[in-house]
């Protein structure tokens, strides 16, 4: 018989390397026709950092998106970026891009100021035009500024930017106390899952996922959605399909090919509803936070809770295989599904505990008060 159930979860996740100390550096230059070259060391692994960083430059510099070339192709021309991991490409590298674009913009305004004979602080850059605030008829195009910089003033329109959240030292290893915030920001999300469980075969089908992420600021909503949707599928795989050690059902059964490694395909896809809220982060570029990694975190606990809601068993070992469900249902039928209660202690899962598995005197041992 098939049963439906729902479960929820709420999670948080840091942006940037834990303890920080992970620099990004960016260099921007304008060609003599006003087109913009961005040199950044951020690898685009599908996360869309080429797009995001280009959008930040376009917004900050005030030029059209398609005037910009973004070059992250090699270490001879791009300065250092710590890398695309730790949810740092939008926030940390994005801040470096933002600073470099601001610096380049100042240089553009400085030359434009000379050409227009208007103080730089009274100028703005909009759609590739430097315009006098409040007097839009007084303007000079960024390409003309670039021409003037190159051939009249002998200058290079350029800007560099670097961003580093300083390393947070653990000042007390006993307590884990740190001297500075150990993250660039923290992002938050909640999720609900609806599953259908066959109590005779143990098969689980994830029918729906609802997810709400506070992204700080969606620099490109399509990209953010894509990250959340992709994370949902990876979280689903983690929850009900994938495993490579202990290579279910035994260490000898390592799957050397995709017939045996259970990566989620399009047919296992649930209906996914994605809700995005924007509470801008004080330190992020335009308020953005990093959310791509955490996108695969909330589904497994929500799915496991939904399985409990459906058939009344807690599966605490991932993935939630059909076998684990049937074995748990058998225990439940034998009356062994309930937690042990002793005084005020309600203890689940003791058969898995290190306390019972590790030898006496193990450094891992500790005991709980009852």
């Amino acid at each position: 018989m098939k049963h439906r159930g729902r479960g929820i979860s709420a999670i948080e996740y840091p942006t940037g390397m834990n303890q920080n100390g992970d620099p990004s550096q960016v260099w921007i230059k304008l060609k003599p026709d006003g087109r913009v070259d961005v040199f950044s060391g951020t690898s685009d692994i599908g996360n869309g950092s080429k797009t995001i960083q280009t959008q930040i430059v376009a917004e900050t510099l005030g030029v059209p998106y398609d005037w910009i070339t973004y070059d992250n192709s090699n270490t001879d021309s791009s300065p250092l970026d710590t890398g695309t991991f730790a949810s740092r490409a939008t926030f940390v590298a994005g801040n470096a891009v933002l600073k470099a674009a601001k610096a380049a913009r100042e240089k553009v305004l400085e030359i434009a100021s000379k050409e227009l004979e208007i103080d730089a602080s009274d100028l703005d850059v909009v759609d590739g035009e430097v315009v006098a605030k409040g007097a839009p008829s007084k303007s000079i195009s960024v390409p003309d500024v670039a021409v003037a910089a190159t051939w009249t003033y002998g200058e290079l329109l350029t800007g560099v930017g670097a961003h580093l959240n300083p390393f947070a030292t653990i000042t007390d290893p006993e307590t884990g106390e740190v001297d500075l915030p150990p993250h660039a920001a923290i992002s938050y999300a909640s999720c609900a899952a609806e599953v259908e469980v066959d109590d005779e075969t143990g098969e689980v089908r994830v029918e729906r996922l609802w997810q709400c992420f506070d992204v700080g600021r969606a620099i490109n909503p399509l990209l953010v959605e894509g990250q959340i949707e992709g994370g949902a599928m990876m979280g689903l795989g983690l929850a009900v399909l994938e495993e490579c050690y202990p290579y279910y059902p035994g260490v000898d059964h390592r799957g050397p090919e995709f017939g045996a490694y259970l990566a989620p395909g399009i047919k296992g896809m649930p209906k996914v509803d994605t809700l995005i809220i924007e509470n801008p982060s004080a330190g992020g570029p335009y308020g953005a936070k990093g959310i791509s990694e955490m996108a695969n975190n909330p589904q497994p606990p929500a799915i496991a809770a939904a399985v409990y809601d459906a058939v009344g068993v807690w599966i605490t070992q991932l993935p939630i295989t059909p076998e684990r469900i049937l074995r748990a249902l058998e225990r439940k039928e034998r009356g062994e599904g309930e937690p042990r209660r002793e005084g005020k202690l309600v203890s689940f899962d003791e058969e898995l505990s290190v306390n019972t598995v590790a030898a006496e005197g193990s450094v891992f041992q500790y005991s709980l008060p009852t």
Partner: protein
Amino acid sequence: MHLIVNGVEREVDSAPLTPLLHVLREELGITSPKAGCQQGGCGSCTVLVGGEPRRSCLLAVATCEGFEVTTVEGLGTPERLAPLQAAFHEQYGAQCGFCTPGMLMASHALLERTPSPSRRDIESALAGHLCRCTGYVKIIAAVEAAARGDVASDQREPSLADADPSEPDVLIPGSPA
């Protein structure tokens, strides 16, 4: 041996049991089909052989002799995207892009035989194509948009390569321009 690849007859010297994937990539330099698993499991090497989607890593080239082989290079160019390619671009059907060629070829074959596919048709056509990035949501959206003809008429974004030379009007003193 001869293959007709994207409409052009090509002579092939590889050993007859060489997978078509390797002939395309290594001998003919056509790199859109990807060597994602070389065991038929990921779908990223999918090409059309005689108009049908096939795993090029599973096909001995000798069995393709004389067939028309179509890869993404044969669908459209950056200057002139096929509507399906435009839809993948507009709907963000690609993230890292590595599975995209296989997704495109399988989707193209689907739309050829079923111009207005149901959601189930799309799932069935793409069931063997692993995408680790998108969660498939926007891939389905792209195929549906292409089927509806819901793609921007321009079909592509301008790039520097073909920027309109009259806008902005720049005269670079002293330069050849």
